[in-house]
């Protein structure tokens, strides 16, 4: 620890860093930051930064409002888009109580807890998300946005702003040490996708936060706007975050075995766990009113709870493994969207899968529709309210806050009179 702090302080000095951003997220996965000067940094690294948590969504009841943001020094990184000599660096923080104990509202530590319990069983959890997003000419709240391009799936377009921007984004991510498997134009106009190389789930949750920040920041610099809203345009597909998952044990991929498609017993039970608990964790993986407009039939989004090798509408897919690349054996969980809180999403997905492994759940037949995913935030929230899996994974504090917040969101939505209703009913009724 000592030498890590020294490394950070020395790098700040050598590289002329002017500010260090201390990054963390609220319960809904929104990006928060403190900015500290190098002079304050040593204290911040040593003691953490005290702040009033009641100002942050999902953090505190007023009676226990002061909390500490404690930097995780392994995540210290210069942000490559600032000029030399005016450098800005970032470091992710865990939120702890004043007495140093983990704070129950900190998503990063919720994920740590689930990873720890997997670790106690001998498993390391690896994830690799495919992050989709839209580039628009501008974002004005309340106005349907105009896509930056008219391309479609895998289109190679003349070197336009969107392609340049995507390339610049990938290079910036690589400079930050974020491995990009590939990037491509997606199906809808203005829609792009970045596929990340797998890492352990904690690193990846941090990475998803970084990617969302980088994509938005570089779009802003190019005079356009990026959005991870799950379904920004009606009639075309929305943005998902298909997430590839694998468990490793003793440096071996624990999903490799003699079962269907080369899957192990652990893998089939993990899938069975996901299928069984999918409805109740959907409020976390798809947390907005708008998320459920993506989960509709006909646009390659999962609707039914089923697993398959090829069906793009299945919730769990078992991707083919290239010959000689048996270590890439994995499963793909297709419901999450990129507007989820990645810490909580990875935590509940792992917890659901582990329940299957530990409870010896039986894998349903391929293609069999076991049940369906909730069709609205309201339905998802009521499933969440009855879930002991979520209570165990996220703790009472977060579940309670989340339910309250999401019920309020649904109530606000219900009060709206939408263009759909005006168009359809006003002349008719």
């Amino acid at each position, binding site marked *: 620890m*000592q*030498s*890590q702090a*020294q*490394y*950070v302080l*020395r*790098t700040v000095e*050598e*590289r002329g860093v002017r500010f260090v951003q201390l990054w963390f997220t609220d319960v809904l996965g929104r990006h928060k930051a403190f900015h500290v000067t190098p002079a304050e940094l040593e204290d911040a690294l040593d003691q953490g930064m005290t702040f009033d948590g009641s100002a942050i969504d999902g953090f505190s009841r007023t009676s226990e409002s002061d909390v500490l943001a404690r930097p995780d*020094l*392994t*995540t*210290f*990184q*210069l942000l*490559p888009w600032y000029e030399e000599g005016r450098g800005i660096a970032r470091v992710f923080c865990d939120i702890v109580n004043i007495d140093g104990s983990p704070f129950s509202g900190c998503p990063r530590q919720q994920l740590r807890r689930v*990873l720890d319990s997997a*670790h106690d069983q001998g498993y*390391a*959890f*690896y994830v690799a998300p495919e992050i989709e997003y839209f580039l628009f000419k501008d974002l004005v709240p309340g106005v349907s946005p105009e896509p930056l391009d008219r391309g479609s799936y895998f289109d190679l377009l003349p070197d336009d702003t969107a392609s340049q921007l995507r390339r610049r984004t990938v290079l910036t991510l*690589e*400079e*930050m*040490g*974020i*491995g990009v498997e590939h990037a491509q134009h997606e199906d809808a106009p203005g829609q792009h996708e970045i596929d990340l*190389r*797998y*890492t*352990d*789930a*904690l*690193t990846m949750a941090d990475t998803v936060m970084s990617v969302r920040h980088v994509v938005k920041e570089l779009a802003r610099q190019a005079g356009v706007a990026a959005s991870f809203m799950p379904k920004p345009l009606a009639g075309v597909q929305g943005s998902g975050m298909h997430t590839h998952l694998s468990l*490793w044990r*003793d*440096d071996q991929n624990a999903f490799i075995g003699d079962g269907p498609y080369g899957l192990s017993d652990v893998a089939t039970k993990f899938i069975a766990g996901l299928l069984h608990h999918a409805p109740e964790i959907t409020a976390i993986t798809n947390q907005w009113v708008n998320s459920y407009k993506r989960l509709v039939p006909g646009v390659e989004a999962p609707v039914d709870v089923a697993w398959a090798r090829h069906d793009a509408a299945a919730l769990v897919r078992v991707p083919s493994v290239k010959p000689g690349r048996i270590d890439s054996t994995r499963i793909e969980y297709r419901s999450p969207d990129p507007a989820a809180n990645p810490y909580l999403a990875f935590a509940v997905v792992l917890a659901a899968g582990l329940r299957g492994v530990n409870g010896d759940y039986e894998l349903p037949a391929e293609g069999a529709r076991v049940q369906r995913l909730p069709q609205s935030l309201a339905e998802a929230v009521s499933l969440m309210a009855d879930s002991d899996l979520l209570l165990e994974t996220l703790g009472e504090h977060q579940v309670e806050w989340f339910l309250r917040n999401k019920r309020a969101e649904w109530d606000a939505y219900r009060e709206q009179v939408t263009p759909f209703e005006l168009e359809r009913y006003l002349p008719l009724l």
Partner: protein
Amino acid sequence: MTDVVLCIPSCEGPIRKAFDVTGVTPVVSATGRLNDIAALEPADGFAGAVINASAFPFTEAMNLCRQLRSRERSLGPVILLLDHYQLDDLTFREDLFDDFVVGPFDVSELATRLRHRLRRAGNESVAPRVEHGQLSMNLETYQATIAGRVMDLTYMEYELLRFLATNPHRVFTRETLLSRVWGYEYYGGARTVDVHVRRLRAKLGEEYAHLIATVRSVGYKFGESSEFDV
């Protein structure tokens, strides 16, 4: 002016005699706590340290060396006192100490090494560097450059690159790298090494990513490869 040398955790028997012979003053700290050490430190600093590793569990002794190395103020050369069976464990930890003596301790050997190390240390003032081809690492400022371009590394990336570049052309398994570079439990298990290697390659850039070569079903190797390598 006599040299003052830090002695952990004790200074007795042949060790004390070796100090007497060389005329070096020992200052004993029973613990490796940096605060305790700082309290004992003379105004012009320690000239070196003698650590009796056989008095600790081995990993604890290594962590102690690591900590001492990371101090703001240099301690000078570190001499380890070891049991014979601990010798194997020194492999790849050469960066943590400057010299070692195997027990049972011989007074004149210990005295000679002490004198020799202290003299050499007095003559060295150049910042330690690791250089390999276009890669240059300044171990004092923690800055790494590739073809003159500064690389922005996280701490573990820096430590991994330093370890690899200090031991070029040698193949390391993931487990070896994990235990030597990380030295603690990590969520990722040995695959963590793959993740960091990827990140390092990304930061080295396309032109230099090949400096870290994957050795199929074994692990990794650092260095400009010859055409005979796979």
